[in-house]
């Protein structure tokens, strides 16, 4: 850190004499933990991508030996030709890694940890040691899941949703210990998530800086807060379900075994009762960060800040009573099904409110299309497409036709990739300077964005069409059905687009890693933003502030008439500002 940075608003923390191990490996510093999550999750994102590439090889070029497939064992891909038993593992593990080990930890593990104390104005989380455990249990879960790819009889293979009794019985699935390892890994992931959530919730409630009232919190913090509540209450249900599945697998219980009185549908209810709040966990933080970035890129306050907050709360609230829309064809009680249809249609409303508010924010703004802004705007567009396909599926009669087809695959990738992952690319670029003290390359960021955007839409948009035509998901060989054979050219097109999409991500990875050492040194506030984190040097020091800042206004005071610049930070005191009601104690 230069002396220029040190004399800026936030003074340096006290002298840091921790050992290397305590500083970077077993660290309790929320910023380091966030960065640990970042490195590990990016690795798992790569793993998930590699699994998808193999799937797309089989779908685009069925029966042909895959380049590099020689490394795979004969039982999975003899001569590099993928077998059905291996294909279904690819499907299952791609979903599992992407949801639990890539997107969720990237959004929550990285940004809740990194941003919350910085954006609310405190030294660290309420429980720094529990925070550390949260990362290490996550890592253990990841290692266990990764190891399941290499065990005899291979990995779990009942889809990422792990429906029982297929997943519960080895004689049904053909897997053995791979299935158990999935359950064990998920138990660790659940624990990690719960420990994290309790930290985020306690910290945001109790440790906000003076003047940081609830309605001066940035939307990124609001969304992370509500997401933490969702995680706190949903993950234990998954943990319970995974435990019961594990017991069915190894000690002979019969929770999900119809032959002994168990209920297959019970698994679905348990899983989706968790699973639906989970998908809101996967989107809300992205929405929150996109709000921050769009306000910054538009040089305007967020349009409808209060309604944005209420929309987040409404989405979270309604998210508990829509889970049955994943089970419309399961044979559950039809009256219950109808109630789920209604609640699912209703939940579109708060999401739409948010979409219009983003557009209202951009309208007649002094737009700056920096790389994060490009990703944030793409998020809005892609999320709208994903949301619209969701409306189709919400209607039970329509879902009867398109459930378990590629229409669903298109929907989920539009919201998870077009939505969450684009938001993540933008957020990583945006907060990279505060994490590492350097800027990522802007020109290469733009190249990565545009190529990703093009190849991404080429990959996933056609899936709406093939799904409508009846192409089922998780299907090894669509060509076994004559009505799907004419779609093979489309499948080839999708596969090639997917390969190009994956290759494009190399640009992001190189940009990310190269910039850590060779990137342009970042100033304190490169985006001219208002949040509290920008009052600190880049990178932010251990302990954040010596004395926590005082907050005088909300986070979106862009183009304010009170100052000449087009931004007015939360922590900047103007002559007309009063101190907040609570006075800081001496020494803080």
């Amino acid at each position, binding site marked *: 850190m230069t002396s220029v940075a040190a004399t800026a608003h936030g003074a340096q923390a006290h002298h840091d004499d921790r050992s290397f191990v305590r500083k970077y490996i077993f660290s309790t510093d929320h910023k380091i933990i966030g960065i640990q999550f970042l490195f590990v999750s990016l690795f798992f994102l790569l793993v998930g991508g590699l699994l998808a590439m193999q799937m797309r090889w089989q779908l685009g070029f069925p029966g042909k030996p895959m380049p590099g497939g020689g490394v795979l064992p004969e039982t999975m891909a003899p001569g590099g030709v993928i077998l059905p038993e291996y294909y279904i593992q690819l499907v299952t593990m791609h979903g599992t890694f992407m949801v639990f080990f890539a997107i969720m930890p990237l959004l929550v593990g990285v940004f809740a940890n990194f941003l919350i104390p910085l954006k609310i104005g405190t030294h660290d989380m309420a429980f720094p040691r529990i925070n550390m455990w949260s990362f290490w249990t996550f890592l253990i879960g990841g290692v266990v899941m990764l190891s399941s790819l290499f065990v005899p009889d291979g990995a779990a293979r009942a889809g990422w949703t792990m429906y029982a009794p297929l997943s519960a019985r080895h004689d049904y699935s053909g897997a053995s210990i791979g299935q158990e390892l999935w359950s064990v890994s998920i138990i660790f992931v659940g624990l990690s998530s719960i420990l994290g959530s309790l930290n985020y919730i306690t910290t945001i409630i109790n440790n906000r800086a003076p003047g940081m009232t609830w309605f001066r919190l940035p939307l990124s913090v609001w969304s992370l807060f509500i997401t933490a509540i969702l995680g706190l*209450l949903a993950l234990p*249900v998954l943990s319970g379900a995974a435990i019961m599945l594990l017991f069915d697998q190894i000690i002979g219980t019969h929770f999900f075994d119809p032959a002994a009185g168990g*209920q297959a*549908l*019970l698994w679905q*209810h348990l899983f989706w*009762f968790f699973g639906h709040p989970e998908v809101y966990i996967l989107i809300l933080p992205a929405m929150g960060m996109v709000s921050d970035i769009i306000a910054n890129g538009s040089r305007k306050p967020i349009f409808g800040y209060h309604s944005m907050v209420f929309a987040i709360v409404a989405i979270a609230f309604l998210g*508990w*009573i829509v889970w*049955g829309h994943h089970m419309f064809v399961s044979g*559950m*009680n*039809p*009256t*219950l099904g109808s109630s789920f249809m209604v609640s699912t249609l209703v939940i579109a409303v708060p999401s739409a409110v948010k979409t219009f508010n983003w557009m209202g924010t951009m309208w007649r703004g002094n737009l700056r299309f920096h790389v994060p802004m490009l990703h944030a705007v793409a998020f809005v567009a892609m999320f709208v497409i994903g949301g619209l396909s969701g409306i189709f599926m919400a209607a039970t009669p329509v879902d009867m036709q398109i459930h378990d087809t590629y229409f669903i695959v298109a929907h989920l990738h539009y919201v998870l990739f077009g939505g969450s992952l684009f938001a993540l690319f933008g957020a990583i670029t945006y907060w990279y300077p505060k994490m590492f003290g350097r800027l990522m390359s802007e020109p290469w960021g733009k190249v990565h964005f545009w190529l990703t955007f093009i190849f991404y839409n080429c990959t996933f948009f056609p899936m709406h069409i093939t799904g409508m035509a009846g192409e089922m998901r998780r299907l090894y060989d669509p060509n076994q059905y004559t009505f799907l054979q004419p779609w093979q050219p489309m499948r080839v097109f999708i596969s090639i687009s997917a390969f190009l999409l994956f290759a494009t991500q190399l640009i992001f990875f190189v940009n990310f890693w190269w910039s850590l050492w060779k990137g342009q040194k970042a100033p304190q506030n490169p985006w001219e933003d208002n949040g509290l984190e920008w009052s600190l040097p880049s990178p932010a020091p251990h302990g954040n502030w010596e004395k926590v800042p005082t907050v005088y206004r909300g986070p979106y005071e862009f183009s304010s008439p009170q100052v000449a610049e087009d931004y007015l930070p939360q922590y900047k005191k103007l002559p007309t500002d009063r101190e907040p009601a609570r006075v800081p104690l001496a020494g803080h």
Partner: protein
Amino acid sequence: METAHKRPNYILIWVYLAVLTAAELALAFELPISRNLKLVLLLFLAVWKAALVGLFFMHLKFERWNLRIMAIIPLPLAVIFILAGMSDHIW
């Protein structure tokens, strides 16, 4: 912190809990009443005991309303889940 209050009589609560437990045992094994009525009454007694522990031992009666809300929130979610799961078997 908590609102100022007179400390509850913990021993008295203990007596209530003991009496309710005895009532439950009597109800479950001694009284000749129908199964469904038994179920309802036993659940009622169990919830009453749980409420005593929550309100007095865990001091929820004397905490701020928003802490009480936080403690209560999981319960409706649990009920919704259980009712939905049961509904698959009532048609």
